Protein backbone atom coordinates (compact mmCIF):
# COMPACT_ATOMS: atom_id res chain seq x y z
CA UNK A 1 0.00 0.00 0.00
CA UNK A 2 1.36 3.40 -0.78
CA UNK A 3 0.75 6.42 1.37
CA UNK A 4 2.27 8.93 -1.00
CA UNK A 5 4.43 10.28 1.80
CA UNK A 6 8.10 10.26 2.65
CA UNK A 7 9.08 11.57 6.06
CA UNK A 8 12.46 13.04 6.83
CA UNK A 9 13.30 13.41 10.50
CA UNK A 10 15.82 16.15 11.22
CA UNK A 11 15.55 19.45 9.33
CA UNK A 12 19.17 20.46 9.01
CA UNK A 13 21.88 19.96 6.40
CA UNK A 14 21.28 16.27 5.70
CA UNK A 15 17.49 16.39 6.01
CA UNK A 16 17.04 19.43 3.81
CA UNK A 17 19.36 18.08 1.14
CA UNK A 18 17.47 14.80 1.17
CA UNK A 19 14.22 16.70 0.62
CA UNK A 20 15.72 18.61 -2.29
CA UNK A 21 17.09 15.46 -3.81
CA UNK A 22 13.70 13.73 -3.58
CA UNK A 23 12.13 16.57 -5.53
CA UNK A 24 14.94 16.74 -8.00
CA UNK A 25 14.66 13.03 -8.72
CA UNK A 26 10.97 13.50 -9.38
CA UNK A 27 9.18 12.45 -6.21
CA UNK A 28 5.86 14.26 -6.43
CA UNK A 29 4.26 12.81 -3.32
CA UNK A 30 4.22 14.45 0.05
CA UNK A 31 7.45 15.19 1.93
CA UNK A 32 7.17 15.74 5.65
CA UNK A 33 10.31 17.39 6.96
CA UNK A 34 10.32 17.26 10.73
CA UNK A 35 12.70 19.23 12.91
CA UNK A 36 12.62 19.87 16.63
CA UNK A 37 14.34 23.24 16.42
CA UNK A 38 12.13 26.29 15.90
CA UNK A 39 14.41 27.76 13.22
CA UNK A 40 14.24 27.23 9.50
CA UNK A 41 17.07 24.96 8.33
CA UNK A 42 20.39 26.67 9.04
CA UNK A 43 24.04 25.86 8.76
CA UNK A 44 26.25 24.96 11.70
CA UNK A 45 29.86 25.54 10.59
CA UNK A 46 29.48 29.36 10.68
CA UNK A 47 28.32 29.14 14.31
CA UNK A 48 31.85 28.66 15.64
CA UNK A 49 33.28 31.03 13.04
CA UNK A 50 31.40 34.03 11.57
CA UNK A 51 28.52 33.99 14.07
CA UNK A 52 30.66 33.69 17.18
CA UNK A 53 33.02 36.34 15.82
CA UNK A 54 30.07 38.68 15.42
CA UNK A 55 30.58 38.96 11.66
CA UNK A 56 27.30 37.32 10.74
CA UNK A 57 23.86 37.79 12.16
CA UNK A 58 21.89 34.57 12.65
CA UNK A 59 19.78 35.06 9.49
CA UNK A 60 22.86 34.62 7.34
CA UNK A 61 23.19 30.99 8.42
CA UNK A 62 19.93 30.07 6.70
CA UNK A 63 20.52 27.20 4.29
CA UNK A 64 17.98 28.23 1.68
CA UNK A 65 16.20 31.39 0.73
CA UNK A 66 12.52 31.49 1.63
CA UNK A 67 11.32 31.08 -1.96
CA UNK A 68 13.61 28.10 -2.53
CA UNK A 69 12.11 26.44 0.53
CA UNK A 70 8.58 27.22 -0.62
CA UNK A 71 9.43 25.82 -4.04
CA UNK A 72 10.06 22.42 -2.50
CA UNK A 73 6.43 22.20 -1.46
CA UNK A 74 7.20 20.60 1.88
CA UNK A 75 5.03 19.62 4.76
CA UNK A 76 7.54 21.41 6.97
CA UNK A 77 7.05 20.84 10.66
CA UNK A 78 9.42 22.89 12.73
CA UNK A 79 9.49 22.78 16.50
CA UNK A 80 8.23 19.21 16.23
CA UNK A 81 9.96 16.27 17.87
CA UNK A 82 9.76 12.76 16.47
CA UNK A 83 9.11 10.51 19.43
CA UNK A 84 9.26 7.10 17.87
CA UNK A 85 9.44 5.01 14.73
CA UNK A 86 7.44 1.90 13.97
CA UNK A 87 10.01 0.34 11.67
CA UNK A 88 8.06 -2.53 10.05
CA UNK A 89 5.08 -0.24 9.36
CA UNK A 90 7.18 2.80 8.39
CA UNK A 91 5.25 4.98 10.78
CA UNK A 92 6.78 8.06 12.36
CA UNK A 93 5.38 9.05 15.73
CA UNK A 94 5.09 12.69 16.67
CA UNK A 95 3.69 12.46 20.16
CA UNK A 96 0.00 11.79 19.67
CA UNK A 97 0.18 12.00 15.90
CA UNK A 98 1.37 9.19 13.63
CA UNK A 99 2.52 9.59 10.04
CA UNK A 100 2.24 6.58 7.76
CA UNK A 101 4.94 6.69 5.13
CA UNK A 102 6.28 4.90 2.10
CA UNK A 103 9.76 5.62 3.33
CA UNK A 104 11.63 7.40 6.08
CA UNK A 105 14.97 9.19 6.10
CA UNK A 106 16.53 9.72 9.50
CA UNK A 107 18.79 12.75 9.78
CA UNK A 108 18.66 13.66 13.44
CA UNK A 109 22.36 14.41 13.76
CA UNK A 110 24.13 14.47 17.08
CA UNK A 111 23.81 16.34 20.36
CA UNK A 112 26.58 17.95 22.36
CA UNK A 113 27.87 15.78 25.17
CA UNK A 114 27.79 17.20 28.66
CA UNK A 115 30.23 16.56 31.47
CA UNK A 116 28.90 13.88 33.78
CA UNK A 117 26.92 15.61 36.49
CA UNK A 118 27.61 18.96 34.87
CA UNK A 119 26.39 21.99 36.73
CA UNK A 120 24.33 24.69 35.06
CA UNK A 121 25.84 27.65 33.37
CA UNK A 122 28.50 25.96 31.26
CA UNK A 123 28.18 26.50 27.52
CA UNK A 124 27.98 23.93 24.77
CA UNK A 125 27.99 24.76 21.07
CA UNK A 126 25.81 22.79 18.71
CA UNK A 127 22.88 24.97 17.73
CA UNK A 128 22.21 28.58 16.84
CA UNK A 129 20.92 29.42 20.29
CA UNK A 130 24.08 27.99 21.87
CA UNK A 131 26.19 30.16 19.59
CA UNK A 132 24.27 33.31 20.44
CA UNK A 133 24.50 32.59 24.16
CA UNK A 134 28.26 32.14 23.98
CA UNK A 135 28.61 35.17 21.75
CA UNK A 136 26.78 37.28 24.32
CA UNK A 137 29.20 36.14 27.01
CA UNK A 138 32.14 37.13 24.83
CA UNK A 139 30.68 40.47 23.78
CA UNK A 140 33.22 42.50 25.74
CA UNK A 141 36.92 41.70 25.41
CA UNK A 142 39.14 40.79 28.31
CA UNK A 143 37.13 37.86 29.61
CA UNK A 144 38.70 34.57 30.44
CA UNK A 145 37.30 31.52 28.67
CA UNK A 146 37.96 27.98 29.79
CA UNK A 147 37.43 25.45 26.99
CA UNK A 148 37.14 21.79 27.88
CA UNK A 149 38.11 19.70 24.87
CA UNK A 150 40.70 20.20 22.14
CA UNK A 151 38.75 18.80 19.21
CA UNK A 152 37.91 20.81 16.11
CA UNK A 153 35.16 22.74 17.88
CA UNK A 154 37.20 23.58 20.96
CA UNK A 155 40.14 24.98 19.02
CA UNK A 156 37.99 26.88 16.53
CA UNK A 157 36.32 28.66 19.41
CA UNK A 158 39.72 29.25 21.02
CA UNK A 159 40.89 30.98 17.85
CA UNK A 160 37.81 33.21 17.62
CA UNK A 161 37.94 34.08 21.31
CA UNK A 162 41.59 35.11 21.01
CA UNK A 163 40.75 37.28 18.02
CA UNK A 164 38.01 38.90 20.07
CA UNK A 165 40.58 39.74 22.73
CA UNK A 166 39.85 37.17 25.40
CA UNK A 167 42.17 35.07 27.49
CA UNK A 168 41.75 31.42 26.56
CA UNK A 169 42.79 28.22 28.21
CA UNK A 170 42.06 24.87 26.59
CA UNK A 171 42.16 21.77 28.75
CA UNK A 172 41.97 18.24 27.33
CA UNK A 173 43.27 14.73 27.93
CA UNK A 174 44.79 14.45 24.46
CA UNK A 175 48.45 15.18 23.81
CA UNK A 176 47.69 17.62 20.97
CA UNK A 177 44.75 19.59 19.56
CA UNK A 178 42.60 17.62 17.12
CA UNK A 179 44.72 14.59 17.81
CA UNK A 180 41.93 12.13 17.16
CA UNK A 181 41.05 13.74 13.83
CA UNK A 182 44.52 14.39 12.42
CA UNK A 183 47.05 12.50 14.54
CA UNK A 184 49.84 13.69 16.78
CA UNK A 185 52.23 15.04 14.12
CA UNK A 186 49.79 17.58 12.68
CA UNK A 187 48.31 18.12 16.13
CA UNK A 188 51.67 19.29 17.46
CA UNK A 189 51.87 21.83 14.66
CA UNK A 190 48.41 23.11 15.56
CA UNK A 191 49.44 23.28 19.23
CA UNK A 192 52.32 25.52 18.27
CA UNK A 193 50.03 27.72 16.20
CA UNK A 194 47.57 28.17 19.06
CA UNK A 195 50.34 28.93 21.53
CA UNK A 196 51.74 31.49 19.10
CA UNK A 197 48.34 33.16 19.22
CA UNK A 198 48.39 33.20 22.98
CA UNK A 199 46.13 30.25 23.82
CA UNK A 200 47.14 28.41 26.97
CA UNK A 201 47.01 24.68 26.30
CA UNK A 202 46.66 22.31 29.24
CA UNK A 203 47.06 19.03 27.40
CA UNK A 204 47.14 15.59 28.94
CA UNK A 205 44.88 16.81 31.75
CA UNK A 206 41.64 15.22 32.86
CA UNK A 207 38.78 17.40 33.99
CA UNK A 208 37.12 16.12 37.11
CA UNK A 209 34.17 18.49 37.27
CA UNK A 210 32.84 22.01 37.00
CA UNK A 211 33.22 24.74 39.54
CA UNK A 212 29.76 26.06 40.08
CA UNK A 213 29.09 29.48 41.51
CA UNK A 214 25.39 29.47 42.25
CA UNK A 215 24.35 28.26 38.81
CA UNK A 216 27.17 29.93 36.92
CA UNK A 217 30.16 27.86 35.87
CA UNK A 218 33.32 29.65 36.90
CA UNK A 219 35.89 27.07 35.96
CA UNK A 220 36.85 23.43 36.15
CA UNK A 221 38.51 21.17 38.65
CA UNK A 222 41.24 18.92 37.28
CA UNK A 223 41.86 15.33 38.26
CA UNK A 224 44.90 16.36 40.32
CA UNK A 225 42.72 18.67 42.39
CA UNK A 226 43.94 21.94 40.90
CA UNK A 227 41.49 24.46 39.48
CA UNK A 228 41.23 26.52 36.30
CA UNK A 229 38.96 29.48 36.72
CA UNK A 230 37.41 31.86 34.21
CA UNK A 231 34.37 33.96 33.35
CA UNK A 232 32.85 31.34 31.08
CA UNK A 233 33.29 27.63 30.43
CA UNK A 234 32.68 25.87 27.12
CA UNK A 235 32.27 22.12 27.12
CA UNK A 236 33.40 20.81 23.74
CA UNK A 237 33.99 17.13 24.39
CA UNK A 238 32.22 15.68 21.40
CA UNK A 239 28.73 14.58 20.61
CA UNK A 240 26.39 11.63 20.88
CA UNK A 241 24.06 10.54 18.07
CA UNK A 242 20.45 11.65 18.54
CA UNK A 243 18.87 8.19 18.56
CA UNK A 244 17.08 8.07 21.92
CA UNK A 245 13.74 8.37 20.16
CA UNK A 246 14.50 5.11 18.31
CA UNK A 247 15.69 3.08 21.24
CA UNK A 248 12.71 0.78 21.61
CA UNK A 249 12.88 -0.35 18.01
CA UNK A 250 14.79 -3.00 16.10
CA UNK A 251 17.47 -0.74 14.58
CA UNK A 252 21.16 -1.19 15.33
CA UNK A 253 22.01 1.80 17.52
CA UNK A 254 25.49 0.80 18.69
CA UNK A 255 27.02 4.06 17.40
CA UNK A 256 24.49 6.12 15.54
CA UNK A 257 22.20 4.17 13.24
CA UNK A 258 23.79 1.14 11.61
CA UNK A 259 23.20 1.03 7.83
CA UNK A 260 24.33 -1.02 4.89
CA UNK A 261 26.41 0.43 2.06
CA UNK A 262 23.23 1.92 0.56
CA UNK A 263 22.49 3.91 3.75
CA UNK A 264 19.54 1.63 4.50
CA UNK A 265 18.89 0.77 8.14
CA UNK A 266 15.85 -1.40 7.37
CA UNK A 267 13.51 -1.82 4.40
CA UNK A 268 12.24 1.64 3.50
CA UNK A 269 14.25 3.27 6.33
CA UNK A 270 17.40 5.21 5.47
CA UNK A 271 19.75 7.40 7.47
CA UNK A 272 22.07 10.26 6.53
CA UNK A 273 24.45 12.76 8.07
CA UNK A 274 26.08 12.82 11.49
CA UNK A 275 23.71 10.19 12.86
CA UNK A 276 24.37 7.54 10.19
CA UNK A 277 26.95 4.79 10.44
CA UNK A 278 27.20 2.91 7.20
CA UNK A 279 29.44 0.35 5.58
CA UNK A 280 31.79 2.27 3.30
CA UNK A 281 32.52 -0.01 0.33
CA UNK A 282 35.92 1.51 -0.49
CA UNK A 283 37.20 1.94 3.05
CA UNK A 284 35.70 -1.50 3.75
CA UNK A 285 34.64 -0.62 7.27
CA UNK A 286 31.71 1.01 9.01
CA UNK A 287 32.12 4.77 9.32
CA UNK A 288 30.12 7.57 10.88
CA UNK A 289 31.21 11.02 9.79
CA UNK A 290 30.40 14.22 11.65
CA UNK A 291 31.29 16.62 8.87
CA UNK A 292 29.33 19.02 6.80
CA UNK A 293 30.13 17.72 3.34
CA UNK A 294 29.05 14.23 4.27
CA UNK A 295 25.67 15.48 5.49
CA UNK A 296 24.96 16.86 2.03
CA UNK A 297 26.32 13.95 0.04
CA UNK A 298 24.67 11.33 2.19
CA UNK A 299 21.37 13.20 2.25
CA UNK A 300 21.34 13.00 -1.53
CA UNK A 301 22.42 9.37 -1.62
CA UNK A 302 19.85 8.24 0.94
CA UNK A 303 17.06 10.04 -0.93
CA UNK A 304 18.02 8.50 -4.26
CA UNK A 305 18.39 5.01 -2.84
CA UNK A 306 15.09 5.20 -1.02
CA UNK A 307 13.33 6.17 -4.25
CA UNK A 308 15.13 3.39 -6.12
CA UNK A 309 13.95 0.91 -3.52
CA UNK A 310 10.35 2.16 -3.70
CA UNK A 311 10.14 2.20 -7.48
CA UNK A 312 13.18 0.88 -9.36
CA UNK A 313 11.42 1.12 -12.69
CA UNK A 314 10.95 4.81 -12.29
CA UNK A 315 14.01 5.77 -10.24
CA UNK A 316 16.65 3.25 -11.29
CA UNK A 317 18.77 1.01 -9.14
CA UNK A 318 20.33 1.76 -5.77
CA UNK A 319 23.96 2.77 -5.62
CA UNK A 320 26.46 2.16 -2.85
CA UNK A 321 27.49 5.29 -1.01
CA UNK A 322 31.27 5.63 -1.36
CA UNK A 323 32.26 9.28 -0.94
CA UNK A 324 35.72 10.66 -0.37
CA UNK A 325 35.26 12.07 3.12
CA UNK A 326 36.19 15.73 3.46
CA UNK A 327 36.30 18.29 6.20
CA UNK A 328 37.67 21.74 6.71
CA UNK A 329 38.25 23.93 9.70
CA UNK A 330 39.11 27.62 9.91
CA UNK A 331 41.47 28.80 12.62
CA UNK A 332 42.89 32.31 12.68
CA UNK A 333 43.89 33.01 9.09
CA UNK A 334 44.58 29.44 8.07
CA UNK A 335 42.44 26.61 6.84
CA UNK A 336 42.76 22.94 7.73
CA UNK A 337 41.44 20.52 5.10
CA UNK A 338 41.29 16.76 5.15
CA UNK A 339 40.42 14.24 2.47
CA UNK A 340 39.76 10.55 2.87
CA UNK A 341 40.28 8.43 5.94
CA UNK A 342 42.82 9.64 8.49
CA UNK A 343 41.87 7.25 11.27
CA UNK A 344 44.04 4.39 12.53
CA UNK A 345 46.96 5.28 10.30
CA UNK A 346 49.98 2.98 10.33
CA UNK A 347 52.17 5.90 9.34
CA UNK A 348 51.85 9.64 8.90
CA UNK A 349 54.16 11.53 6.59
CA UNK A 350 54.01 15.22 7.48
CA UNK A 351 55.79 17.77 5.36
CA UNK A 352 56.17 21.28 6.77
CA UNK A 353 56.08 23.61 3.79
CA UNK A 354 56.86 26.86 5.55
CA UNK A 355 57.90 27.43 9.13
CA UNK A 356 58.63 31.15 9.15
CA UNK A 357 55.56 31.96 11.26
CA UNK A 358 54.44 29.32 13.77
CA UNK A 359 51.14 31.18 14.06
CA UNK A 360 50.48 30.62 10.35
CA UNK A 361 51.62 27.05 9.73
CA UNK A 362 51.81 25.59 6.27
CA UNK A 363 52.02 21.83 5.96
CA UNK A 364 50.65 18.78 4.22
CA UNK A 365 50.45 15.17 5.35
CA UNK A 366 49.54 11.75 4.05
CA UNK A 367 48.15 8.89 6.10
CA UNK A 368 49.10 5.32 5.27
CA UNK A 369 47.16 2.14 6.07
CA UNK A 370 48.64 -1.07 4.79
CA UNK A 371 50.37 -0.27 1.52
CA UNK A 372 48.12 2.60 0.49
CA UNK A 373 47.50 6.25 1.23
CA UNK A 374 44.00 6.54 2.69
CA UNK A 375 44.01 10.08 4.02
CA UNK A 376 45.47 13.49 3.31
CA UNK A 377 45.64 16.69 5.30
CA UNK A 378 46.63 20.23 4.55
CA UNK A 379 47.18 23.12 6.92
CA UNK A 380 47.45 26.65 5.58
CA UNK A 381 47.64 25.46 1.97
CA UNK A 382 45.42 27.35 -0.48
CA UNK A 383 42.39 25.13 -1.16
CA UNK A 384 42.87 24.95 -4.88
CA UNK A 385 46.38 23.62 -4.41
CA UNK A 386 45.25 21.28 -1.64
CA UNK A 387 42.84 19.63 -4.07
CA UNK A 388 45.82 17.77 -5.49
CA UNK A 389 45.85 15.80 -2.24
CA UNK A 390 42.33 14.63 -2.89
CA UNK A 391 43.55 12.91 -6.02
CA UNK A 392 46.08 10.94 -4.01
CA UNK A 393 43.45 9.37 -1.77
CA UNK A 394 40.16 9.44 -3.72
CA UNK A 395 40.91 5.88 -4.63
CA UNK A 396 43.62 4.86 -2.18
CA UNK A 397 46.91 4.98 -4.08
CA UNK A 398 50.07 2.98 -3.46
CA UNK A 399 51.97 4.79 -0.70
CA UNK A 400 55.16 5.55 -2.61
CA UNK A 401 53.20 6.97 -5.51
CA UNK A 402 51.06 9.15 -3.25
CA UNK A 403 54.15 10.57 -1.59
CA UNK A 404 54.99 12.16 -4.92
CA UNK A 405 52.04 14.51 -4.45
CA UNK A 406 53.62 15.80 -1.24
CA UNK A 407 56.84 16.47 -3.12
CA UNK A 408 54.93 18.40 -5.74
CA UNK A 409 53.22 20.54 -3.12
CA UNK A 410 56.58 21.23 -1.50
CA UNK A 411 58.22 22.31 -4.72
Amino acid at each position, binding site marked *: MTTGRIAIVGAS*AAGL*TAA*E*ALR*REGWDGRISLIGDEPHEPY*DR*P*PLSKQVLAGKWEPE*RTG*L*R*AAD*ALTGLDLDLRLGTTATGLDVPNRRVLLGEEALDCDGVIIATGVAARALPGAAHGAHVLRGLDDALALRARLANPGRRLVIVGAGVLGVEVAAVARELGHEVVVVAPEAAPMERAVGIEAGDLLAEAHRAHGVRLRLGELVDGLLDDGGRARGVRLADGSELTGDAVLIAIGCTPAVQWLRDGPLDLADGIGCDSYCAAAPGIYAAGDVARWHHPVLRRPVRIEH*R*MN*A*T*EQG*MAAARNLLAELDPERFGTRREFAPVP*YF*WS*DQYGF*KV*QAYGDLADADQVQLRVLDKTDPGAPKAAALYRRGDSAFGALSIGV*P*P*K*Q*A*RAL*RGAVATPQPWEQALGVLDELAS
Partner: protein
Amino acid sequence: MKITIDEDRCCGAGQCVLEAPDVFDQRAEDGVVVLLDAAPPAELHEASRSAEQLCPTAAIEISE
Protein backbone atom coordinates in the same frame (compact mmCIF):
# COMPACT_ATOMS: atom_id res chain seq x y z
CA MET B 1 19.38 29.33 -15.73
CA LYS B 2 20.99 32.06 -13.67
CA ILE B 3 23.67 31.30 -11.12
CA THR B 4 24.74 33.55 -8.30
CA ILE B 5 27.45 32.90 -5.75
CA ASP B 6 28.08 34.24 -2.29
CA GLU B 7 31.86 34.50 -1.93
CA ASP B 8 31.54 35.28 1.72
CA ARG B 9 29.99 31.90 2.52
CA CYS B 10 32.27 29.80 0.37
CA CYS B 11 34.76 27.69 2.33
CA GLY B 12 36.76 26.66 -0.70
CA ALA B 13 35.71 23.01 -0.60
CA GLY B 14 35.95 22.82 -4.35
CA GLN B 15 33.01 20.45 -4.65
CA CYS B 16 31.46 22.70 -7.28
CA VAL B 17 34.58 22.49 -9.43
CA LEU B 18 34.53 18.71 -9.26
CA GLU B 19 30.89 18.69 -10.34
CA ALA B 20 30.95 21.37 -13.03
CA PRO B 21 34.45 22.49 -14.01
CA ASP B 22 33.10 24.52 -16.92
CA VAL B 23 30.94 26.60 -14.64
CA PHE B 24 33.01 26.98 -11.47
CA ASP B 25 36.65 27.54 -10.64
CA GLN B 26 38.50 28.53 -7.48
CA ARG B 27 40.71 31.54 -6.88
CA ALA B 28 44.31 30.43 -6.58
CA GLU B 29 45.14 32.38 -3.45
CA ASP B 30 42.25 31.54 -1.15
CA GLY B 31 40.17 28.92 -2.93
CA VAL B 32 37.06 31.06 -3.05
CA VAL B 33 34.69 30.10 -5.83
CA VAL B 34 34.90 31.88 -9.18
CA LEU B 35 31.87 31.79 -11.41
CA LEU B 36 33.00 31.07 -14.95
CA ASP B 37 29.57 31.04 -16.47
CA ALA B 38 26.61 32.69 -14.75
CA ALA B 39 24.18 31.48 -17.42
CA PRO B 40 25.46 28.10 -18.55
CA PRO B 41 24.03 26.29 -21.56
CA ALA B 42 21.45 23.55 -21.12
CA GLU B 43 23.93 20.68 -21.16
CA LEU B 44 25.55 22.08 -18.01
CA HIS B 45 22.33 22.59 -16.04
CA GLU B 46 22.32 19.16 -14.45
CA ALA B 47 25.91 19.49 -13.24
CA SER B 48 25.31 23.03 -12.02
CA ARG B 49 22.31 21.89 -10.00
CA SER B 50 24.39 19.13 -8.46
CA ALA B 51 27.01 21.70 -7.49
CA GLU B 52 24.36 23.88 -5.90
CA GLN B 53 23.09 20.97 -3.84
CA LEU B 54 26.48 19.59 -2.91
CA CYS B 55 28.12 22.86 -1.90
CA PRO B 56 28.62 22.44 1.84
CA THR B 57 28.09 26.12 2.59
CA ALA B 58 25.07 26.84 0.39
CA ALA B 59 27.13 29.46 -1.42
CA ILE B 60 25.62 28.72 -4.81
CA GLU B 61 22.12 29.78 -5.74
CA ILE B 62 20.38 28.95 -8.98
CA SER B 63 17.24 30.50 -10.33
CA GLU B 64 15.54 29.67 -13.57
